[in-house]
């Protein structure tokens, strides 16, 4: 992966004007994404994971939102672009898959139409070609007999099947980057594994870069190449996945790993291992943003001086004056690491099985 990155984010800032003042939600984000690479962004709720990726194509409400910095997609910086120009990037060059397949799809339109409407704007294809492409995409994501399902409505699919449709939509215009924002969080464990496997396989096939957003450090181990750990709108630790799990350094990363449930021992979900709550983006603490909750801090410097993001070698970055002692860090990492077991062999088989339990999560529709 020595080639040029397909996506380079530089000093990205996102803030919202709110009644309680300026909410600084993303504060100077830098990263590169290469073709075929999977970058995981992890962090607690509210750390700015979603906003940072939505803001790349200004999918946040503006105003009150404002974006600065640079987002290089190939040779184009997206930040200065107008709404009209951004339409050529949204969906076309950066595809999105959102968390909840129950709400991402419009209940009143057949899925075929929702799958093709983006292609009609972005791709210069005839209706017949678009239809063929739609069928092909549904086939790829493991929807059995897709040509019969184009006219079906979202409520006629199970949760897992809907998320497959959403993924097909995200991929429909062959984007260079796919943002999967908690794409499996709303699904049951088996379906989660299928979707993880599916995106991995499609990535190998199509070569796009994937930004995988999750708050679950456990899942990340099996799928990511590189991991960004975000806290209060900043990267607090970034490393290649193996380096991170070999030895996490930042107190927050270690805290996150400790708070994961240990497989086979769900009782041990020790959520108290990071005490307190993340700071409000309108009232960030002085010094290190994490210091009020830090279990490892040991002097007043943390409360007054903001630690810089420093490279400790091999692209392993941490934003902390201290490193968690090796023994504690390794123990936490070993417990956190879950390898995703890919579901056996052919996915379409599983998909077909899933059709049987169609109404799985459809109760609320």
């Amino acid at each position, binding site marked *: 992966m020595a080639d040029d990155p397909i996506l380079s984010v530089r000093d990205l800032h996102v803030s919202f004007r709110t009644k309680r003042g300026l909410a600084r939600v993303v504060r100077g984000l830098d990263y590169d994404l290469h073709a075929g690479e999977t970058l995981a962004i992890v962090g607690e709720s509210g750390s700015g994971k979603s906003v940072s990726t939505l803001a790349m*194509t200004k*999918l946040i409400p503006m105003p009150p939102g404002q974006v600065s910095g640079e987002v290089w997609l190939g040779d184009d910086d997206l930040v200065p672009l107008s*709404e009209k120009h*951004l*339409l*050529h*990037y*949204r*969906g*076309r060059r950066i*595809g*999105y898959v*959102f968390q*909840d397949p129950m*709400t*991402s*799809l*419009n*209940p*009143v*339109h*057949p899925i075929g139409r929702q799958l093709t*409407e*983006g292609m009609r*704007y*972005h791709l210069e294809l005839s209706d017949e070609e678009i239809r063929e492409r739609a069928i092909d995409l549904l086939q790829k994501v493991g929807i059995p007999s897709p040509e019969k399902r184009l006219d079906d*409505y979202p*409520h*006629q699919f199970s949760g897992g099947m809907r998320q497959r449709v*959403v993924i097909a*939509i995200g991929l429909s*215009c062959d984007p260079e980057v796919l943002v999967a924002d908690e794409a499996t969080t709303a699904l049951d464990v088996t379906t989660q594994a299928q979707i993880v496997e599916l995106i991995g396989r499609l990535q190998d096939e199509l070569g796009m870069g994937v930004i995988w957003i999750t708050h679950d450090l456990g899942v990340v181990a099996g799928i990511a190449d590189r991991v960004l750990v975000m806290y209060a709108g900043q990267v607090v630790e970034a490393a290649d996945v193996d380096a991170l799990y070999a030895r996490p350094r930042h107190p927050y990363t270690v805290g996150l790993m400790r708070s994961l449930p240990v497989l086979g021992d769900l009782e041990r979900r020790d959520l108290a291992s990071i005490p307190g709550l993340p700071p409000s983006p309108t009232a960030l603490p002085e010094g290190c943003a994490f210091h009020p909750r830090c279990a490892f801090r040991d002097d007043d410097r943390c409360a007054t001086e903001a630690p810089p993001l420093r490279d400790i070698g091999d692209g392993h970055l941490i934003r902390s004056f201290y490193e968690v002692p090796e023994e504690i860090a390794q123990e936490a990492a070993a417990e956190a690491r879950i390898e995703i077991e890919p579901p056996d062999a052919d996915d379409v088989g599983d998909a077909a099985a899933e059709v049987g339990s169609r109404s799985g999560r459809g109760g609320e*529709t």
Partner: protein
Amino acid sequence: MAGYVAKRVAQSLLALLGVSVVVFALIHLVPGDPVRTALGTRFDQELYEVLRARAGLDQPLVVQYFDWLFRALQGDLGVSFRTGQPVTEALMQRLPATALLAVSAVLVGLVIALPAGIISAVRQGKVSDYVANAFSQIGVSIPDFWYGILLILLFAQTLRWLPPFGYTSLLEDPVDGLQRLIMPALTTGVVTGAILTRFVRSSVLEAMNSEHVRFARAKGLPQRHVFRHHVLRNAWNPIVTITGLQLGTLLGGIVVVEVVFAWPGIGRLALTAVERRDYPVLQGAVLLIAAAFLIINLVVDLLYAKLDPRIRSS
């Protein structure tokens, strides 16, 4: 879909049957002898006998009910205690005026509410939103006859552009009919519009804030495409429902405006029937209003099913 239609039609018929029982019971809940009460000081033994027999009051209750129901099904709702006119005839004379006013008022209401509600949702928190909000607040809090009186003072009294009251059938004299329709339709329409504006606004807002709209934008679709196909299209369902309910309510409930404008509608007929204890007319009016409401509800539900695939297939 066919199953759904059949189910809804059956439900409506059942509801109508329920209404008929209540309506029938009315005449028997009145203390004393309804015919005697109705005749009051104009009591006349011969007329009394005729009306009592005609109303079937000398039969057992169950027999009376089925007799009444059977005749009602054939369009015979008895005769007025006061005028001797067949009730059905009286209702049919009044129905066009009420239907015309109700439909016109809903149209006026929609003409106001669709743009006002949509603009205020899209420009949420801006000046136009506040203006629309103020309008709907004021619109619903001031009673409709007040607007009626204002309009009469302005257009009939001061400007002398329009006749102050009365009704002419549009079929007989379209120009005069329209002129007489304007003020009552505006009066009722403004209030309807104020109610509908809030629903349009909240329906559009709800649709705008749904996750699938964000997803549609993430596909790179132009704003107007997203608005038309993912916001408005989804907002239609609740708008259609509430509009239908408003129409149904108006068909039976424009009493005050009918009185202010001397509009010969069902509402006034029912009011007069109450005043005069003219029970057959009252029964007929209530039955007609209920039937109209049920029919409109049925149509709305079928439309809704047409708009929402989830209902269609369940």
